[in-house]
């Protein structure tokens, strides 16, 4: 039962990119929900003069390193988008590979940090929230890395040419959303504590 009304000839938003933007919005709203709870409870704890995290528990260096790594990955991801739109396959390989590598580095640093933090998950409401937020973000980055590696495989198969640039653009939106979420974690949790 197909509807054969006029063929789509008008310029419409690109399907893959639209889907990826909507998916990224869904992920961002998930984190927005967690952030809202975190900031609201922290504000209440501060207002009542209670301790939120024990002194020195949250260190700035690991979070800062992750932020720097993800900032670099924004550049490599933009490089991948640019390369694929220029039909430059070699640079696309390089850019996607580097982005995946930086993503893996972030996951590695996060796992190390969560093991090193010295706060058990059930220490307090704040530690439960911290583990949930950071763990969920690590999952988001892991999905991005897997997606990235799949694109890299397709690139080796010859499919990441200009004709397939939407695939890379779609991934880039998701990746940028992941970095945006992390920047809130970095400022709101690691810096502002």
């Amino acid at each position: 039962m197909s509807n054969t009304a006029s063929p789509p000839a008008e310029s419409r938003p690109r399907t893959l990119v639209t889907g990826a933007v909507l998916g990224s919005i869904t992920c961002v709203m998930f984190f927005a929900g967690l952030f809202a709870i975190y900031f609201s409870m922290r504000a209440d704890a501060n207002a009542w003069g209670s301790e939120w995290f024990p002194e020195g528990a949250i260190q700035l260096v690991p979070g800062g390193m992750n932020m720097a790594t993800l900032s670099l990955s924004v550049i490599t991801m933009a490089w991948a988008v640019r390369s694929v739109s220029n039909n430059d396959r070699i640079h696309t390989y390089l850019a996607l590979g580097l982005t995946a590598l930086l993503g893996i580095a972030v996951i590695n640093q996060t796992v190390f940090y969560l093991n090193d933090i010295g706060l058990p998950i059930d220490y307090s409401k704040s530690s439960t929230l911290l583990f949930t937020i950071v763990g969920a973000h690590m999952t988001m980055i892991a999905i991005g890395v897997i997606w990235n590696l799949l694109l890299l495989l397709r690139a080796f198969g010859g499919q990441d040419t200009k004709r397939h640039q939407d695939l890379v653009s779609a991934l880039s939106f998701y990746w940028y959303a992941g970095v945006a979420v992390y920047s809130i974690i970095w400022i709101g949790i690691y810096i502002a504590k």
Partner: protein
Amino acid sequence: MTTTDIAPDSVAVTSEQDQTYVERLVTSTSNLSLGKSWIFSGCVYLVFSTFLGFLLDIVRFDSDSYLIFSNVDKFFQFWSLHRTSIVLLAVVPMIIGLAMCIVPLQIGANSIVFPRAAAFGFWVWFLGSGITVVGFLADGGFGAPELGSQREAVALTLVGLLLVIAGICMSVICLLTTIISGRCTGMNLRRIPLFSWTMLLAGTLWILTLPVLAANSILAYVDLKGRSAIYFGSEDLIWDQISWAFTNPQIYVFVLPVIGIAYDIVPVAAKVRQRNHDLILILSSLFGIIGFGAYAQPFFDTPGTPVREEALYVLTALLAVPLTFFLLVGLLDTLKLGARNLTKHPPAPMILSLLSLLLLISGAIVGALRAIEPFELLSRSSTSAQMKLTIAAGLVAVIAAMLWWGERIIGKSAKQGFGLISGILITAGALLSGLSDSVNGFLGLDDFTTVDFLQKVSAEQLVKILIPFSFIGSMLIFAGAVVFLLVELLRTKNGPVSEADPWNGHTLEWTEEIVTVESERPLLDEAEKAGT
């Protein structure tokens, strides 16, 4: 290098013929097949959840019968299961199913975008719904305050709930992408039919709010699976964290497509063009915006400033009344315009569309009263009344939509009279139950009525008089759901093959011809041109 992404048609047809029914069902990525799966599953859960509602009202009717549930904690668990299932396992899935079938046709797309993802979304939801129900039945429901449940089963229920949300979001993203990117030439956003428009709004709001519900659930899950749940994962606190999704204002977001269904049916039934189409677009958008309820989570209130007493919450609850009223006036105006075209027996879907908007207004009025702080109705049975009325609006609209578009979806005609009866039963039941619960709210009856509380208020004679009405109402809703399921089963099995366009529709889902889209009602344009 040659790639063969798509198999040749002949190969695909042959392999499809070799498949069994179950294989076809599981592997199908056709939007019609997926839509039917959503609708049928939603129907089954509808009967299940309305039956639960009926059982729960038996306890309110006769407090000794709480033993059906073995204890008060179980009673509370089934009470929360009823609310969760009627929204996330019945009404929303049936609306998604309708949209999956109708929206691509209405906007001139050949099919849904990302069909495999849409199929994956359905199966994730289906798996999640089963896990949710099994988790609840295994003593893993969200327990009553100060009572406990099975921790592992509660974790299972939370996983199920997360899968349900993921499945819904995935399918909705496919639908939204279809509407945004798959429209045919000439079909700009102002010209898309109102059902597709309200699906665009509702879908957007679902992907903005359901992830927040997922955030609540995952927080509870992480805490519950930690060495000892310290706060979020305490079994007696989980329902308090997620209950915002089933009350004012979020409840409106789930039934937003009611407006689109009514506005697609009534003008065609009255054989006139809907006036003020742009105004309806704006009003329905406003109604969607005021329904955004992810911010209204009383569990995380800052002491001294409860969110449900803030101006935004009260204002949006009050605004829902004039908005729904204006939307009803728009439909009545259309009916007035087409009064001479209406026969003595107007089509069942038209009657049900009007009833659904009446229920929506009733729900909005109860919601507005509930938000007025001096009445102190926030934790009273008015909450249940608003939910029943609003959700019933969604159910009646789905029945209207199935009687209207079902011939296009299933290809067979249904018994319109029986469909009308099912809608009227649900309307009558919701009004009876909703209005008695509203009055009982004023008389001090709590939203969750424990047995102790029932004994405490037994002196209140009026409460005791009104509770049976609520019970009868729930019974009627259950009966309506059963009749609806039977109507659709009989249609699928024995229904006569239907005409291609039984209603002389105005929008693209009713044609397979190439049509130029110059307004929101392209087929009416063609008919008018042919007439002149």
